[in-house]
Every structure is written in structure tokens, then in C-alpha cells.
């Protein structure tokens, strides 16, 4: 994890190009997700009741290509942003190397499976 206050600091502290790319990715995806997620929460939780998210309503909405794209963008960006954020936490708190490798491996597997599950669901209707 990079503890930097500016992009210049981040570049100096990064151990690898990958680590610097993740630092940049967190900021760009975060900026996009602010709009996507706050819009999603407003449209599906504030404007309408939670009870309205029935089978017919969800399948009907996700049949539209625009919502497929919107929701798939959230799925992909939020899972990558969340997985990398959790990686920072795992690297901070799980100190034993073998345990850390297992925790990471298990966690990445769960995220990858859910990403596949969500993608198949979205594009199967």
C-alpha cells in the first residue's frame, strides 16, 4: 500500500509499476463509482421501495441493454475497487506469509466467482 499525499510521492514510494497503477486505478474508478453508485442507490432504494424489487421487476429492468451496461460497469469497477481495497487491509493486518497467501487466494476466488456469476446473469436475459 502506498501512503502518499501527492502523485509525485506515490511514484517515489511505489515498489512496482503494478502498485502505482493500482493507486491510479483506485482514484479513477472511485471517481466514476461515486456517480454510478449514488445514482443506483437513489434510483433503486430512495425513489422506489425495497419491496418493489420483485423477480418480474428485476428481470424486466435488466432486459434493457442500457441497464445491463450500467449494472455491469458497477459490477466490474466496484469488485476491482473493493478487491484491491481489501488487499490493502489483508496486507496490513495478516502478518504471517503463508496465512496471507491463503487468505488472499480464497478471497480472490470468491470475488472472481461472483464476477462470473453476475456477468452470466446479466447477459443471460
Amino acid at each position, binding site marked *: 500500500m502506498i501512503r*502518499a*499525499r*501527492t*502523485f509525485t510521492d*506515490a511514484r517515489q514510494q511505489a515498489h512496482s509499476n503494478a502498485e502505482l497503477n493500482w493507486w491510479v486505478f483506485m*482514484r479513477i474508478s*472511485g*471517481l466514476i*463509482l*461515486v456517480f454510478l*453508485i*449514488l445514482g443506483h*442507490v437513489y434510483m433503486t*432504494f*430512495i425513489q422506489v*421501495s*425495497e*419491496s418493489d*424489487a*420483485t*423477480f418480474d421487476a*428485476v*428481470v424486466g429492468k435488466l432486459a434493457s441493454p442500457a441497464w445491463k451496461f450500467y449494472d455491469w460497469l458497477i*459490477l466490474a469497477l*466496484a*469488485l476491482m475497487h*473493493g*478487491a484491491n*481495497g*481489501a488487499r490493502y*487491509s489483508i496486507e496490513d493486518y495478516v502478518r504471517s506469509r503463508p496465512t496471507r497467501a491463503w487468505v488472499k487466494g480464497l478471497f480472490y476466488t*470468491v*470475488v472472481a466467482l*461472483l464476477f462470473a*456469476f*453476475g456477468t*452470466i*446473469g*446479466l447477459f*443471460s*436475459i
Partner: protein
Amino acid sequence: MYRGREGQWAFLLHRLSGLAILFYLLLHVFSIGSFIFGERFYMAIHNTYDLWPFRIGLVFVSAGVVYHAFNGLRIIVMDFTGAGVAYQRQMWYAVLLISVASFFYALLTLWPRMVGGY
């Protein structure tokens, strides 16, 4: 534990809200995506999530999302501008204010629906 000032609490809350949102997201992808197993399966999960403890939980998730979103913007401003570092404390109080306001806004919007059962 290191007892820092506002910045330390901003960091801790950002991490906790992020992990909480991630946990919710994983559940949410499964519960909504479960429509591929058919209507009975989906509606069984949906009817469980309609119980009031889960609906109240969504108010906390919303407030957590708002905190993480606005504190994330504060971090970006800090990373790319000098003024952002100088005013990070003031910005954090603004973030807290927006989060608490969102919590009550979501709660007050949800309340009549929950009491009315729709």
C-alpha cells in the same frame, strides 16, 4: 493503538465503510443474480430481505456508501492539490455532516414504507 487526530479517524472510517460495502456488494450480487435459479429461489431471498432488520440495515449501507464516496473525493483532492492538504480537516467535517444528513434522509424516506408494509 495510535491515537491520531481527525485524519486517523477519517482513514479508519474509510477502511471500515469500504470493507462493509464490499461485504454487502458480495451478498447483493448473489441475491439479485439469483434470478437465474428461477422465480421461487429469487423470491425466497427477496422476502427475507424485506424483513425490517435488513431494511434498517440498508439505511446504514447507504450512509456508509455516502461517507466512502465523499471521503474518497476528499482523498483525491488531497492527492492532487496543495489546498486539499491544508483544508483536509474542514473537508472531513463536511463529509461527516453529509453522511449523517444522508442517514436521516434515507431513514425518514424508508420509515413510512416500513410502517405501512409496502
